Protein backbone atom coordinates (compact mmCIF):
# COMPACT_ATOMS: atom_id res chain seq x y z
CA UNK A 1 0.00 0.00 0.00
CA UNK A 2 1.62 3.17 -1.12
CA UNK A 3 0.43 6.65 -0.47
CA UNK A 4 0.94 9.42 -2.96
CA UNK A 5 3.31 12.16 -2.06
CA UNK A 6 1.91 15.54 -1.26
CA UNK A 7 2.97 17.21 -4.49
CA UNK A 8 4.15 14.68 -7.10
CA UNK A 9 4.57 17.13 -9.96
CA UNK A 10 7.00 19.35 -8.06
CA UNK A 11 9.35 16.49 -7.15
CA UNK A 12 9.21 14.99 -10.65
CA UNK A 13 10.43 18.15 -12.37
CA UNK A 14 13.27 19.57 -10.34
CA UNK A 15 14.30 21.88 -13.21
CA UNK A 16 11.12 23.87 -13.11
CA UNK A 17 11.44 27.38 -11.84
CA UNK A 18 11.09 27.52 -8.13
CA UNK A 19 8.30 29.83 -7.07
CA UNK A 20 9.40 33.25 -5.87
CA UNK A 21 9.99 33.40 -2.14
CA UNK A 22 6.78 33.89 -0.27
CA UNK A 23 6.22 37.40 0.81
CA UNK A 24 5.30 37.94 4.41
CA UNK A 25 1.59 37.34 4.80
CA UNK A 26 0.05 40.72 4.31
CA UNK A 27 -3.31 41.54 5.69
CA UNK A 28 -5.62 42.53 2.85
CA UNK A 29 -5.98 46.25 3.09
CA UNK A 30 -9.51 47.38 3.63
CA UNK A 31 -9.86 48.96 0.22
CA UNK A 32 -12.34 51.80 -0.06
CA UNK A 33 -15.58 50.15 -1.12
CA UNK A 34 -16.20 51.12 -4.71
CA UNK A 35 -19.85 51.03 -5.53
CA UNK A 36 -20.82 50.27 -9.13
CA UNK A 37 -21.87 53.57 -10.63
CA UNK A 38 -24.97 52.42 -12.51
CA UNK A 39 -26.47 50.60 -9.54
CA UNK A 40 -25.57 53.52 -7.28
CA UNK A 41 -27.55 55.77 -9.63
CA UNK A 42 -30.64 53.61 -9.24
CA UNK A 43 -30.50 53.57 -5.47
CA UNK A 44 -29.76 57.30 -5.35
CA UNK A 45 -32.89 58.03 -7.35
CA UNK A 46 -35.01 56.15 -4.84
CA UNK A 47 -33.30 57.75 -1.84
CA UNK A 48 -33.66 61.19 -3.41
CA UNK A 49 -37.36 60.66 -3.91
CA UNK A 50 -38.26 59.04 -0.60
CA UNK A 51 -35.49 60.13 1.79
CA UNK A 52 -35.78 58.55 5.21
CA UNK A 53 -38.69 56.31 4.29
CA UNK A 54 -36.35 53.85 2.55
CA UNK A 55 -33.11 52.24 3.61
CA UNK A 56 -30.51 51.03 1.09
CA UNK A 57 -29.38 47.64 2.40
CA UNK A 58 -26.71 46.96 -0.22
CA UNK A 59 -25.56 48.04 -3.66
CA UNK A 60 -23.72 45.21 -5.41
CA UNK A 61 -23.01 44.53 -9.03
CA UNK A 62 -26.39 44.08 -10.76
CA UNK A 63 -28.25 44.00 -7.46
CA UNK A 64 -29.71 46.81 -5.36
CA UNK A 65 -31.62 46.11 -2.21
CA UNK A 66 -34.05 48.56 -0.65
CA UNK A 67 -35.79 48.03 2.68
CA UNK A 68 -39.13 49.79 3.08
CA UNK A 69 -41.68 50.00 5.83
CA UNK A 70 -45.02 48.41 5.12
CA UNK A 71 -46.84 51.75 4.94
CA UNK A 72 -44.64 52.98 2.06
CA UNK A 73 -44.11 49.82 0.04
CA UNK A 74 -46.94 50.49 -2.41
CA UNK A 75 -45.77 54.03 -3.11
CA UNK A 76 -42.17 52.94 -3.62
CA UNK A 77 -43.24 50.11 -5.93
CA UNK A 78 -45.18 52.56 -8.07
CA UNK A 79 -42.11 54.76 -8.39
CA UNK A 80 -39.99 51.73 -9.31
CA UNK A 81 -42.39 50.91 -12.13
CA UNK A 82 -43.05 54.41 -13.46
CA UNK A 83 -39.85 56.23 -12.61
CA UNK A 84 -37.25 53.50 -13.04
CA UNK A 85 -38.81 51.36 -15.82
CA UNK A 86 -38.86 48.06 -13.99
CA UNK A 87 -41.80 46.08 -15.35
CA UNK A 88 -42.18 42.66 -13.78
CA UNK A 89 -41.60 40.77 -10.55
CA UNK A 90 -39.55 37.59 -10.86
CA UNK A 91 -40.10 36.19 -7.44
CA UNK A 92 -41.73 36.97 -4.12
CA UNK A 93 -40.11 35.24 -1.17
CA UNK A 94 -41.09 35.19 2.45
CA UNK A 95 -38.43 34.88 5.13
CA UNK A 96 -39.44 34.17 8.70
CA UNK A 97 -37.56 35.93 11.52
CA UNK A 98 -39.09 34.69 14.78
CA UNK A 99 -36.40 36.42 16.86
CA UNK A 100 -37.46 39.82 15.44
CA UNK A 101 -41.14 38.86 15.57
CA UNK A 102 -41.39 39.77 11.90
CA UNK A 103 -41.87 38.12 8.54
CA UNK A 104 -39.96 39.62 5.64
CA UNK A 105 -41.43 39.66 2.14
CA UNK A 106 -38.86 40.16 -0.60
CA UNK A 107 -39.76 41.19 -4.15
CA UNK A 108 -37.19 40.60 -6.89
CA UNK A 109 -38.06 43.06 -9.62
CA UNK A 110 -36.61 42.98 -13.13
CA UNK A 111 -37.11 44.65 -16.47
CA UNK A 112 -37.69 43.30 -19.98
CA UNK A 113 -38.54 46.50 -21.81
CA UNK A 114 -35.50 48.59 -20.79
CA UNK A 115 -32.39 46.95 -22.23
CA UNK A 116 -30.02 48.85 -19.94
CA UNK A 117 -31.70 47.18 -16.95
CA UNK A 118 -31.56 43.64 -18.38
CA UNK A 119 -28.91 42.51 -15.91
CA UNK A 120 -30.41 44.32 -12.95
CA UNK A 121 -32.56 42.92 -10.20
CA UNK A 122 -34.00 45.38 -7.73
CA UNK A 123 -34.70 43.74 -4.40
CA UNK A 124 -37.54 45.39 -2.51
CA UNK A 125 -37.97 44.10 1.03
CA UNK A 126 -40.63 44.89 3.57
CA UNK A 127 -41.61 43.37 6.87
CA UNK A 128 -44.92 42.35 8.40
CA UNK A 129 -45.71 41.79 12.04
CA UNK A 130 -45.56 38.13 13.07
CA UNK A 131 -48.07 36.41 15.30
CA UNK A 132 -47.09 33.53 17.54
CA UNK A 133 -50.45 31.84 17.09
CA UNK A 134 -51.39 32.77 13.56
CA UNK A 135 -54.88 32.76 12.14
CA UNK A 136 -53.99 33.33 8.48
CA UNK A 137 -55.99 36.19 7.07
CA UNK A 138 -57.49 37.26 10.37
CA UNK A 139 -54.53 38.49 12.36
CA UNK A 140 -52.09 41.39 12.24
CA UNK A 141 -49.78 39.72 9.69
CA UNK A 142 -50.83 41.93 6.81
CA UNK A 143 -49.22 43.84 3.97
CA UNK A 144 -50.62 45.94 1.12
CA UNK A 145 -50.65 44.03 -2.15
CA UNK A 146 -48.58 45.04 -5.17
CA UNK A 147 -50.88 43.24 -7.60
CA UNK A 148 -52.23 46.53 -8.96
CA UNK A 149 -48.67 47.75 -9.59
CA UNK A 150 -47.11 44.54 -10.92
CA UNK A 151 -49.60 42.04 -12.33
CA UNK A 152 -46.94 39.34 -12.17
CA UNK A 153 -47.11 38.99 -8.38
CA UNK A 154 -50.57 37.43 -8.61
CA UNK A 155 -49.69 33.78 -7.87
CA UNK A 156 -46.53 34.61 -5.94
CA UNK A 157 -48.45 36.56 -3.30
CA UNK A 158 -50.99 33.78 -3.01
CA UNK A 159 -48.11 31.41 -2.39
CA UNK A 160 -46.63 33.63 0.33
CA UNK A 161 -50.05 33.87 1.97
CA UNK A 162 -50.31 30.11 2.14
CA UNK A 163 -46.77 29.38 3.18
CA UNK A 164 -46.28 32.21 5.70
CA UNK A 165 -49.76 33.46 6.51
CA UNK A 166 -49.05 37.01 5.30
CA UNK A 167 -52.36 38.40 4.13
CA UNK A 168 -52.11 40.82 1.20
CA UNK A 169 -54.78 43.48 1.56
CA UNK A 170 -56.39 44.39 -1.73
CA UNK A 171 -55.35 41.29 -3.65
CA UNK A 172 -58.32 40.45 -5.89
CA UNK A 173 -58.02 36.69 -5.62
CA UNK A 174 -57.16 35.64 -2.09
CA UNK A 175 -57.71 31.92 -2.31
CA UNK A 176 -55.69 28.82 -1.61
CA UNK A 177 -53.23 27.76 -4.26
CA UNK A 178 -50.94 24.92 -3.22
CA UNK A 179 -51.99 23.40 0.09
CA UNK A 180 -54.89 20.99 0.62
CA UNK A 181 -58.28 22.61 1.08
CA UNK A 182 -58.58 21.40 4.67
CA UNK A 183 -55.13 22.51 5.83
CA UNK A 184 -55.50 23.62 9.46
CA UNK A 185 -51.91 23.58 10.71
CA UNK A 186 -49.39 26.42 10.89
CA UNK A 187 -48.28 27.93 7.59
CA UNK A 188 -45.61 25.39 6.62
CA UNK A 189 -42.62 27.57 5.80
CA UNK A 190 -42.58 29.33 9.17
CA UNK A 191 -39.66 28.38 11.35
CA UNK A 192 -41.83 26.95 14.12
CA UNK A 193 -43.35 24.40 11.76
CA UNK A 194 -40.99 21.46 12.26
CA UNK A 195 -40.50 18.58 9.87
CA UNK A 196 -41.53 15.24 11.31
CA UNK A 197 -38.65 13.39 12.93
CA UNK A 198 -36.40 16.45 13.27
Amino acid at each position, binding site marked *: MSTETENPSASANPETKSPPPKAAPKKPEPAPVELPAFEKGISDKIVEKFGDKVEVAFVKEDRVRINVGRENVHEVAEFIRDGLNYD*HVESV*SGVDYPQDNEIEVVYHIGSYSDSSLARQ*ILVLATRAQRETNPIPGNDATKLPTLRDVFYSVEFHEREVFEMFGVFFEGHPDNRRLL*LPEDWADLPPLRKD*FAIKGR
Partner: protein
Amino acid sequence: MTTELPPGLALQKVDERIMTLNVGPQHPGSGHMRIVVQIDGDYIVACDPDPGYVHRGEEKMAEYRNYITNIPHLERPVIHDSCNVLYPYVLGAEELLGIEVPERAKYVRVIASELNRCIYIMYWLAIYGIFLGHSTMFMWPAGDRELLIDLMEKMTGARVTHAHFVPGGVRNDLPPNFEDVCLRQVNYFEKRIKEYAAVFYDNPILISRTRDTGVLSREDAIRYGTTGSVLRASGVDYDLRIKEPYDVYDELDVHTNVMKEGDSYARSRIPWLDMLESCNIIRQALQKMPKSGSVRVKLKPNPKTKGLESVYKRVESGRGSLGCYIVSDAKTEPYRVKLSVPSFRNLIALPNLLKGEKLGNMPSVYWSLNYWPVEADR
Protein backbone atom coordinates in the same frame (compact mmCIF):
# COMPACT_ATOMS: atom_id res chain seq x y z
CA MET B 1 -102.48 38.96 -24.49
CA THR B 2 -99.22 37.47 -23.39
CA THR B 3 -99.08 35.19 -20.44
CA GLU B 4 -95.97 34.56 -18.43
CA LEU B 5 -94.36 31.24 -19.20
CA PRO B 6 -94.08 28.66 -16.40
CA PRO B 7 -90.58 28.55 -14.84
CA GLY B 8 -89.49 25.37 -16.58
CA LEU B 9 -90.21 26.76 -20.03
CA ALA B 10 -88.68 30.19 -19.51
CA LEU B 11 -85.50 30.99 -21.42
CA GLN B 12 -82.40 30.24 -19.44
CA LYS B 13 -80.14 33.05 -18.35
CA VAL B 14 -76.74 33.07 -19.97
CA ASP B 15 -74.77 32.17 -16.86
CA GLU B 16 -76.91 29.13 -16.24
CA ARG B 17 -75.51 27.65 -19.42
CA ILE B 18 -72.02 27.74 -18.01
CA MET B 19 -70.69 24.40 -16.88
CA THR B 20 -67.74 23.82 -14.58
CA LEU B 21 -65.38 21.09 -15.66
CA ASN B 22 -62.46 19.61 -13.78
CA VAL B 23 -59.67 18.69 -16.17
CA GLY B 24 -57.16 16.54 -14.36
CA PRO B 25 -55.26 15.77 -12.23
CA GLN B 26 -53.84 12.79 -14.10
CA HIS B 27 -55.67 13.59 -17.27
CA PRO B 28 -54.19 13.50 -20.77
CA GLY B 29 -54.95 17.17 -21.14
CA SER B 30 -53.36 18.43 -17.97
CA GLY B 31 -50.70 16.15 -16.54
CA HIS B 32 -50.39 16.42 -12.79
CA MET B 33 -52.22 19.71 -12.68
CA ARG B 34 -55.92 20.27 -12.22
CA ILE B 35 -57.44 22.96 -14.36
CA VAL B 36 -60.95 24.03 -13.43
CA VAL B 37 -62.48 25.40 -16.60
CA GLN B 38 -65.89 26.96 -17.06
CA ILE B 39 -67.30 26.33 -20.48
CA ASP B 40 -70.17 27.86 -22.38
CA GLY B 41 -70.95 25.32 -25.07
CA ASP B 42 -67.56 24.70 -26.58
CA TYR B 43 -65.85 27.88 -25.42
CA ILE B 44 -63.85 28.43 -22.27
CA VAL B 45 -65.06 31.48 -20.38
CA ALA B 46 -62.93 31.14 -17.26
CA CYS B 47 -60.05 29.00 -16.11
CA ASP B 48 -58.55 28.43 -12.70
CA PRO B 49 -55.30 26.45 -12.55
CA ASP B 50 -54.72 24.44 -9.39
CA PRO B 51 -51.06 23.33 -9.34
CA GLY B 52 -51.07 22.04 -5.77
CA TYR B 53 -51.23 18.33 -6.20
CA VAL B 54 -47.78 16.88 -5.63
CA HIS B 55 -46.32 19.45 -3.25
CA ARG B 56 -43.21 18.05 -1.61
CA GLY B 57 -41.82 20.97 0.34
CA GLU B 58 -38.41 21.24 -1.31
CA GLU B 59 -37.78 24.69 0.15
CA LYS B 60 -38.56 23.59 3.68
CA MET B 61 -36.34 20.52 3.43
CA ALA B 62 -33.47 22.66 2.15
CA GLU B 63 -33.36 24.46 5.52
CA TYR B 64 -32.45 21.22 7.27
CA ARG B 65 -29.49 20.15 5.12
CA ASN B 66 -26.09 21.72 4.62
CA TYR B 67 -24.85 23.32 1.44
CA ILE B 68 -23.52 20.07 -0.04
CA THR B 69 -26.20 17.61 1.02
CA ASN B 70 -28.84 19.91 -0.44
CA ILE B 71 -27.61 19.10 -3.92
CA PRO B 72 -29.09 15.66 -4.68
CA HIS B 73 -32.44 16.78 -3.37
CA LEU B 74 -32.82 20.27 -4.84
CA GLU B 75 -32.60 18.82 -8.36
CA ARG B 76 -35.78 16.80 -7.79
CA PRO B 77 -38.35 19.37 -8.95
CA VAL B 78 -37.34 18.85 -12.60
CA ILE B 79 -35.56 15.56 -12.89
CA HIS B 80 -35.20 15.77 -16.68
CA ASP B 81 -33.49 19.15 -16.37
CA SER B 82 -31.69 18.39 -13.16
CA CYS B 83 -28.44 20.20 -13.96
CA ASN B 84 -30.20 23.44 -14.80
CA VAL B 85 -32.54 23.43 -11.83
CA LEU B 86 -29.53 23.02 -9.56
CA TYR B 87 -27.39 25.58 -11.35
CA PRO B 88 -28.56 28.81 -9.64
CA TYR B 89 -28.32 27.20 -6.22
CA VAL B 90 -24.74 26.15 -6.88
CA LEU B 91 -23.80 29.60 -8.21
CA GLY B 92 -25.40 31.20 -5.16
CA ALA B 93 -23.67 28.87 -2.72
CA GLU B 94 -20.35 29.63 -4.41
CA GLU B 95 -20.86 33.34 -3.95
CA LEU B 96 -21.83 32.90 -0.30
CA LEU B 97 -18.89 30.61 0.46
CA GLY B 98 -16.48 32.68 -1.62
CA ILE B 99 -15.25 29.97 -4.00
CA GLU B 100 -13.61 30.50 -7.38
CA VAL B 101 -14.36 27.75 -9.90
CA PRO B 102 -11.64 26.28 -12.18
CA GLU B 103 -11.90 27.16 -15.86
CA ARG B 104 -12.35 23.59 -17.09
CA ALA B 105 -15.19 22.98 -14.65
CA LYS B 106 -17.06 25.95 -16.09
CA TYR B 107 -16.94 24.42 -19.56
CA VAL B 108 -18.00 21.01 -18.28
CA ARG B 109 -20.94 22.69 -16.59
CA VAL B 110 -21.97 24.50 -19.75
CA ILE B 111 -21.85 21.25 -21.76
CA ALA B 112 -23.86 19.39 -19.12
CA SER B 113 -26.37 22.21 -18.89
CA GLU B 114 -26.91 22.33 -22.67
CA LEU B 115 -27.22 18.53 -22.93
CA ASN B 116 -29.78 18.62 -20.14
CA ARG B 117 -31.72 21.37 -21.88
CA CYS B 118 -32.01 19.15 -24.97
CA ILE B 119 -33.03 16.14 -22.86
CA TYR B 120 -35.77 18.17 -21.22
CA ILE B 121 -37.04 19.67 -24.45
CA MET B 122 -37.14 16.25 -26.14
CA TYR B 123 -39.26 14.91 -23.31
CA TRP B 124 -41.57 17.90 -23.49
CA LEU B 125 -41.78 17.57 -27.28
CA ALA B 126 -42.77 13.91 -26.95
CA ILE B 127 -45.62 14.85 -24.60
CA TYR B 128 -46.69 17.75 -26.78
CA GLY B 129 -46.83 15.42 -29.76
CA ILE B 130 -48.88 12.73 -28.09
CA PHE B 131 -51.39 15.19 -26.64
CA LEU B 132 -52.01 16.53 -30.11
CA GLY B 133 -52.57 12.98 -31.32
CA HIS B 134 -49.29 12.80 -33.22
CA SER B 135 -47.85 9.51 -31.98
CA THR B 136 -44.79 9.61 -34.26
CA MET B 137 -43.77 12.74 -32.40
CA PHE B 138 -44.01 10.78 -29.18
CA MET B 139 -41.80 7.92 -30.30
CA TRP B 140 -39.08 9.75 -32.18
CA PRO B 141 -38.03 12.18 -29.42
CA ALA B 142 -38.40 9.48 -26.78
CA GLY B 143 -35.92 7.37 -28.73
CA ASP B 144 -33.54 10.13 -29.77
CA ARG B 145 -33.09 11.52 -26.29
CA GLU B 146 -31.48 8.22 -25.33
CA LEU B 147 -28.42 9.42 -27.27
CA LEU B 148 -28.01 12.36 -24.97
CA ILE B 149 -28.92 10.41 -21.85
CA ASP B 150 -26.11 8.00 -22.72
CA LEU B 151 -23.75 10.96 -22.95
CA MET B 152 -24.88 12.22 -19.55
CA GLU B 153 -24.43 8.75 -18.13
CA LYS B 154 -20.86 8.67 -19.40
CA MET B 155 -20.22 12.09 -17.93
CA THR B 156 -21.93 11.81 -14.55
CA GLY B 157 -22.65 8.16 -13.91
CA ALA B 158 -26.39 8.66 -13.58
CA ARG B 159 -29.01 8.62 -16.29
CA VAL B 160 -31.66 10.96 -14.95
CA THR B 161 -30.76 12.74 -11.69
CA HIS B 162 -27.09 13.53 -11.99
CA ALA B 163 -26.20 15.62 -8.89
CA HIS B 164 -23.12 16.57 -10.86
CA PHE B 165 -22.75 20.28 -10.07
CA VAL B 166 -21.33 21.09 -6.66
CA PRO B 167 -20.16 24.36 -5.11
CA GLY B 168 -16.61 24.57 -6.42
CA GLY B 169 -17.01 22.84 -9.76
CA VAL B 170 -18.33 19.45 -10.87
CA ARG B 171 -18.09 16.13 -9.14
CA ASN B 172 -15.98 14.18 -11.64
CA ASP B 173 -13.77 14.94 -14.58
CA LEU B 174 -14.87 13.90 -18.06
CA PRO B 175 -14.10 10.28 -18.96
CA PRO B 176 -11.30 9.69 -21.52
CA ASN B 177 -12.34 10.14 -25.12
CA PHE B 178 -15.55 11.89 -24.08
CA GLU B 179 -15.01 14.86 -26.39
CA ASP B 180 -14.98 12.74 -29.55
CA VAL B 181 -18.00 10.68 -28.57
CA CYS B 182 -19.90 13.80 -27.57
CA LEU B 183 -19.13 15.59 -30.82
CA ARG B 184 -20.20 12.59 -32.89
CA GLN B 185 -23.44 12.06 -30.98
CA VAL B 186 -24.35 15.74 -31.03
CA ASN B 187 -23.74 15.97 -34.78
CA TYR B 188 -25.98 13.00 -35.39
CA PHE B 189 -28.57 14.36 -32.98
CA GLU B 190 -28.68 17.68 -34.77
CA LYS B 191 -29.17 15.99 -38.13
CA ARG B 192 -31.94 13.91 -36.63
CA ILE B 193 -33.93 16.73 -35.03
CA LYS B 194 -33.84 18.70 -38.27
CA GLU B 195 -36.04 15.95 -39.68
CA TYR B 196 -38.69 16.84 -37.10
CA ALA B 197 -39.47 20.01 -39.00
CA ALA B 198 -40.95 18.10 -41.92
CA VAL B 199 -42.95 15.61 -39.91
CA PHE B 200 -44.17 17.87 -37.11
CA TYR B 201 -43.74 21.61 -37.59
CA ASP B 202 -44.77 21.65 -41.24
CA ASN B 203 -47.64 19.29 -40.64
CA PRO B 204 -50.91 21.00 -41.71
CA ILE B 205 -52.87 19.37 -38.90
CA LEU B 206 -50.48 20.67 -36.27
CA ILE B 207 -50.50 24.11 -37.84
CA SER B 208 -54.29 24.25 -37.89
CA ARG B 209 -54.43 23.30 -34.22
CA THR B 210 -51.77 25.70 -33.00
CA ARG B 211 -51.79 28.75 -35.28
CA ASP B 212 -53.64 31.72 -33.76
CA THR B 213 -54.62 29.83 -30.63
CA GLY B 214 -53.76 31.24 -27.25
CA VAL B 215 -52.23 34.42 -28.59
CA LEU B 216 -50.13 36.33 -26.04
CA SER B 217 -49.24 39.86 -27.03
CA ARG B 218 -45.85 41.38 -26.31
CA GLU B 219 -47.22 43.80 -23.70
CA ASP B 220 -49.06 41.05 -21.85
CA ALA B 221 -46.05 38.74 -21.92
CA ILE B 222 -44.06 41.46 -20.16
CA ARG B 223 -46.88 42.40 -17.79
CA TYR B 224 -47.47 38.81 -16.66
CA GLY B 225 -43.73 38.39 -16.11
CA THR B 226 -43.52 35.30 -18.30
CA THR B 227 -40.16 33.85 -19.18
CA GLY B 228 -38.31 31.52 -21.52
CA SER B 229 -39.94 30.28 -24.70
CA VAL B 230 -43.28 31.89 -23.81
CA LEU B 231 -41.66 35.30 -23.60
CA ARG B 232 -39.47 34.87 -26.65
CA ALA B 233 -42.37 33.60 -28.77
CA SER B 234 -44.08 36.94 -28.09
CA GLY B 235 -41.21 38.95 -29.51
CA VAL B 236 -39.18 39.86 -26.42
CA ASP B 237 -35.49 39.21 -26.93
CA TYR B 238 -34.45 38.11 -23.46
CA ASP B 239 -32.13 35.24 -22.76
CA LEU B 240 -30.02 35.18 -19.61
CA ARG B 241 -27.21 33.37 -21.42
CA ILE B 242 -26.67 36.64 -23.27
CA LYS B 243 -28.13 39.28 -20.98
CA GLU B 244 -26.51 38.11 -17.75
CA PRO B 245 -23.91 35.51 -18.77
CA TYR B 246 -22.83 33.10 -16.08
CA ASP B 247 -19.81 30.80 -16.13
CA VAL B 248 -18.35 30.90 -19.68
CA TYR B 249 -21.37 31.89 -21.75
CA ASP B 250 -19.82 35.27 -22.46
CA GLU B 251 -16.92 33.54 -24.26
CA LEU B 252 -19.23 31.56 -26.53
CA ASP B 253 -21.25 32.74 -29.47
CA VAL B 254 -24.87 32.37 -28.37
CA HIS B 255 -27.93 33.43 -30.36
CA THR B 256 -31.46 33.93 -29.13
CA ASN B 257 -34.45 32.59 -31.00
CA VAL B 258 -37.29 35.08 -31.10
CA MET B 259 -40.64 34.87 -32.89
CA LYS B 260 -43.28 37.54 -33.13
CA GLU B 261 -46.59 35.67 -33.38
CA GLY B 262 -47.07 34.77 -29.72
CA ASP B 263 -49.38 31.84 -30.54
CA SER B 264 -49.08 28.17 -29.60
CA TYR B 265 -47.19 27.42 -32.79
CA ALA B 266 -44.46 29.94 -32.02
CA ARG B 267 -44.24 28.79 -28.42
CA SER B 268 -43.79 25.20 -29.50
CA ARG B 269 -41.28 26.00 -32.22
CA ILE B 270 -38.93 28.09 -30.05
CA PRO B 271 -37.77 25.11 -27.90
CA TRP B 272 -36.96 23.17 -31.05
CA LEU B 273 -34.85 26.05 -32.34
CA ASP B 274 -33.23 26.21 -28.90
CA MET B 275 -32.08 22.61 -29.30
CA LEU B 276 -30.30 23.46 -32.56
CA GLU B 277 -28.67 26.39 -30.78
CA SER B 278 -27.64 24.11 -27.92
CA CYS B 279 -25.85 21.82 -30.38
CA ASN B 280 -23.87 24.86 -31.59
CA ILE B 281 -22.96 25.83 -28.04
CA ILE B 282 -21.81 22.31 -27.17
CA ARG B 283 -19.57 22.19 -30.25
CA GLN B 284 -18.01 25.55 -29.38
CA ALA B 285 -17.51 24.57 -25.74
CA LEU B 286 -15.85 21.28 -26.70
CA GLN B 287 -13.45 23.20 -28.90
CA LYS B 288 -12.57 25.95 -26.44
CA MET B 289 -12.41 23.79 -23.31
CA PRO B 290 -8.98 23.54 -21.65
CA LYS B 291 -7.77 20.02 -22.32
CA SER B 292 -6.60 19.37 -18.79
CA GLY B 293 -6.80 20.86 -15.35
CA SER B 294 -8.71 20.60 -12.15
CA VAL B 295 -12.49 20.46 -12.21
CA ARG B 296 -13.23 20.90 -8.54
CA VAL B 297 -12.13 22.96 -5.58
CA LYS B 298 -12.17 20.84 -2.48
CA LEU B 299 -14.29 22.29 0.32
CA LYS B 300 -14.17 21.82 4.04
CA PRO B 301 -16.63 19.18 5.23
CA ASN B 302 -19.22 21.58 6.61
CA PRO B 303 -18.64 24.94 4.98
CA LYS B 304 -20.06 27.97 6.78
CA THR B 305 -20.97 31.35 5.37
CA LYS B 306 -19.92 34.68 6.80
CA GLY B 307 -23.00 36.25 8.26
CA LEU B 308 -26.57 37.18 7.59
CA GLU B 309 -26.49 37.81 3.87
CA SER B 310 -28.53 36.93 0.85
CA VAL B 311 -27.90 36.21 -2.80
CA TYR B 312 -30.16 35.92 -5.81
CA LYS B 313 -28.76 34.03 -8.81
CA ARG B 314 -30.52 33.08 -11.99
CA VAL B 315 -29.83 30.95 -15.05
CA GLU B 316 -31.63 30.16 -18.30
CA SER B 317 -33.07 26.68 -17.99
CA GLY B 318 -34.96 24.66 -20.57
CA ARG B 319 -38.15 26.51 -19.66
CA GLY B 320 -36.83 29.98 -18.93
CA SER B 321 -35.20 32.04 -16.24
CA LEU B 322 -34.72 30.07 -13.05
CA GLY B 323 -33.78 32.02 -9.94
CA CYS B 324 -32.60 30.96 -6.54
CA TYR B 325 -32.72 33.22 -3.50
CA ILE B 326 -30.56 32.01 -0.62
CA VAL B 327 -30.47 33.64 2.81
CA SER B 328 -27.66 32.46 5.03
CA ASP B 329 -26.99 33.14 8.71
CA ALA B 330 -23.43 31.90 9.32
CA LYS B 331 -24.51 28.32 9.84
CA THR B 332 -23.87 25.16 7.88
CA GLU B 333 -27.44 25.10 6.61
CA PRO B 334 -29.05 27.85 4.54
CA TYR B 335 -31.57 29.92 6.48
CA ARG B 336 -33.97 30.03 3.58
CA VAL B 337 -33.88 28.78 0.01
CA LYS B 338 -36.44 29.99 -2.48
CA LEU B 339 -36.66 28.77 -6.03
CA SER B 340 -38.32 31.10 -8.50
CA VAL B 341 -39.27 28.72 -11.26
CA PRO B 342 -40.36 29.42 -14.84
CA SER B 343 -43.33 27.03 -14.80
CA PHE B 344 -44.87 28.89 -11.88
CA ARG B 345 -44.25 32.25 -13.52
CA ASN B 346 -45.71 31.18 -16.86
CA LEU B 347 -48.78 29.80 -15.14
CA ILE B 348 -49.98 33.37 -14.50
CA ALA B 349 -50.56 33.69 -18.24
CA LEU B 350 -52.62 30.50 -18.56
CA PRO B 351 -56.07 31.76 -17.42
CA ASN B 352 -55.75 34.71 -19.78
CA LEU B 353 -54.60 32.55 -22.68
CA LEU B 354 -57.42 30.05 -22.36
CA LYS B 355 -60.21 32.61 -22.07
CA GLY B 356 -62.22 32.52 -25.27
CA GLU B 357 -60.54 29.44 -26.67
CA LYS B 358 -62.33 26.26 -27.65
CA LEU B 359 -62.08 23.42 -25.16
CA GLY B 360 -60.48 21.26 -27.84
CA ASN B 361 -57.58 23.71 -28.08
CA MET B 362 -56.81 23.46 -24.39
CA PRO B 363 -54.06 20.82 -24.68
CA SER B 364 -52.29 22.67 -27.45
CA VAL B 365 -52.30 25.95 -25.51
CA TYR B 366 -51.53 24.46 -22.13
CA TRP B 367 -48.60 22.30 -23.24
CA SER B 368 -47.15 25.05 -25.39
CA LEU B 369 -46.35 26.87 -22.12
CA ASN B 370 -43.45 24.40 -21.74
CA TYR B 371 -44.91 23.56 -18.38
CA TRP B 372 -43.53 21.06 -15.90
CA PRO B 373 -46.13 20.42 -13.19
CA VAL B 374 -43.81 19.31 -10.41
CA GLU B 375 -41.62 22.36 -10.83
CA ALA B 376 -44.48 24.77 -10.24
CA ASP B 377 -45.36 22.79 -7.16
CA ARG B 378 -41.84 22.30 -5.77
